[in-house]
């Protein structure tokens, strides 16, 4: 069911589209525009070749306001969520400052049901950073999303709302002061990239953590080293894949206790630390290793949602459940032994197809047991038995005292459970 909040931006977009049809918007488009933008938009949305979709998206974005009516017409006819992320991102990143583009980005950013609202907010942010009037105009929009459950949305909102020196102090449109520091490591790194915060980026270099086999920590480190290279003009020779297991790599390298690629990496980190200290005028940043714990996990679920935010949950053979809104799973719950035995027993009766529904953006990745392959689940496509099992897991987590984690799981189930299955 559509939430009332989601209707407002849609109504805005519809009114905006109607105004264009009436000729108001057309008057603002360049007069000598002979391009058939609808063809380029269609190609950006439907070409079977990824590269051609990407190229068409860039062309549409470079068309500026002249191309926007064709984008809106496509969205009106086929649904706004058939617009690919590449097109929205291209408009956000390389589009101009035309009124039609601004209006489209604004409406998309406010639409909670639009998959690529964070990319749209980024488009507003990039423009607002170059134009004080736009910054003032969109300030309430940015403030509105500083606590958004979707980390990317939150990141762009915080980039535009917070003073970097007072990271968690902002007055919202409602007059409330938000004082929540960013805890998601992915968001911290992205925010540091946007702000050019070399120390925070350096801190991310030591991350090798994984979730259900996904090396998200190394991905974070790779983003950080690319951003540092851009900031400092050098990556110091640091190579993500050659990182070592020691906690104080630069010191060890200088002391000569490392060899080969590890030693090179240690020296690279030392060079980076020197460069950061020289740039910022402070002390050298400390290198910290963030690696997986020694626990072995039997299974888990990962729900990625541009709308509702992410949820990560994983469990051990002993019924220890770790979870949270970020892949470092900051919360843990110990399920009672009898309850966990029953959950393990019922898990053996479950089989999930590898694909459940067609995934566009929001998705669940689930592994009930290590002997079964992982499955992907689109919204409203989680089969009944798995939904029931996860509902029981939520109840067990609640019994262990971690009610917020249990509630988060139930909320995500609401999005992914097949409509034929009711979860209460």
């Amino acid at each position, binding site marked *: 069911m559509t939430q009332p909040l989601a209707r407002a931006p849609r109504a805005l977009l519809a009114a905006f589209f109607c105004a264009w049809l009436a000729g108001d918007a057309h008057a603002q488009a360049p007069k000598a525009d002979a391009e058939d933008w609808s063809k380029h938009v269609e190609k950006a949305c439907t070409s*079977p*070749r*990824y*590269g*051609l979709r*990407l*190229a068409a998206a860039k062309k549409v974005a470079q068309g500026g306001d002249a191309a926007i009516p064709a984008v809106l017409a496509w969205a009106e006819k086929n649904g706004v969520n058939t617009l690919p*992320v*590449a097109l929205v*991102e*291209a408009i956000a990143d390389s589009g101009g400052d035309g009124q039609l583009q601004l209006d489209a980005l604004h409406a998309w950013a406010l639409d909670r049901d639009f*998959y690529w609202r964070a*990319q749209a907010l980024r488009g507003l942010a990039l423009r607002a950073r170059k134009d004080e009037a736009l910054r003032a105009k969109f300030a309430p929009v940015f403030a509105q999303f500083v606590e958004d459950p979707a980390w*990317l949305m939150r990141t762009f909102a915080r980039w535009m709302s917070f003073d970097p020196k007072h990271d968690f102090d902002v007055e919202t449109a409602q007059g409330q002061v938000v004082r929540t520091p960013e805890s998601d490591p*992915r968001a911290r790194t*992205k925010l540091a990239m946007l702000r050019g915060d070399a120390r925070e980026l350096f801190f991310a270099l030591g991350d090798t953590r994984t979730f*259900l*086999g*996904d*090396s998200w920590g*190394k*991905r974070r480190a*790779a983003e950080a*080293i*690319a951003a540092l290279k851009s900031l400092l003009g050098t990556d110091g020779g640091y*190579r*993500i*894949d050659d990182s070592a297991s020691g906690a104080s790599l630069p010191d060890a390298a200088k002391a000569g206790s490392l060899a080969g690629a590890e030693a090179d990496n240690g020296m690279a980190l030392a060079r980076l630390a020197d460069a950061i200290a020289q740039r910022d005028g402070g002390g050298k940043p400390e290198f910290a290793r963030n690696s997986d714990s020694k626990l072995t996990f039997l299974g888990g679920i*990962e729900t*990625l949602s*541009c709308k509702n935010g992410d949820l990560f949950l994983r469990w051990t053979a002993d019924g220890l459940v770790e979870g949270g809104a970020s892949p470092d799973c900051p919360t843990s719950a110990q399920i009672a032994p009898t309850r966990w035995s029953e959950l393990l027993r019922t898990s053996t009766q479950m089989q999930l197809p*590898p*694909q459940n529904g*067609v*995934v*566009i*953006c929001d*998705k669940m*990745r689930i*592994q009930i047991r290590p002997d079964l*392959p*992982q*499955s*992907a689940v689109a919204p409203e496509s989680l089969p009944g038995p798995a939904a029931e099992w996860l509902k029981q897991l939520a109840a067990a987590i609640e019994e262990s005292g971690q009610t917020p984690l249990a509630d988060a799981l139930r909320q995500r189930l609401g999005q992914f459970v097949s409509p034929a299955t009711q979860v209460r």
Partner: protein
Amino acid sequence: MRCMRSVALLLPLCLLPQDPIRTSFAVLAGFDWTAGMKLPDEVTKLDSKKVQLGGFMMRETPGSGPVAQFLLINDACGCTGTPKMNEIVFCAMPDGTTTEIKNGVVQVTGTLYVGEQKEEDEVIAIYVMDVDTIQ
């Protein structure tokens, strides 16, 4: 004669299947790509080599069922943004075979081809792989 014998003895060793070179997206995507640029030596040296690479399988277009081609990317859903050209390996299964899109991280082994490929005057790929195995 002795020399000839040595060559004959070593020849079978050359014909043994090569161990794949382990590489990663940290290497493949470790530079800002722009169309027409000279690609870094670190990636061009992998051209036509047997490599092993971990990543997520993604369909080139939304759908279901087995595929003959797929994209290997570094991010589970691409929600954080559009993968750039050097963040994608365009993978082709052996002729006449298909694969299901597996969930989670997979290790793909095959022959990697490095270099810009164009269609309709647009770069449509930098990395293409003929897949041998997916694990």
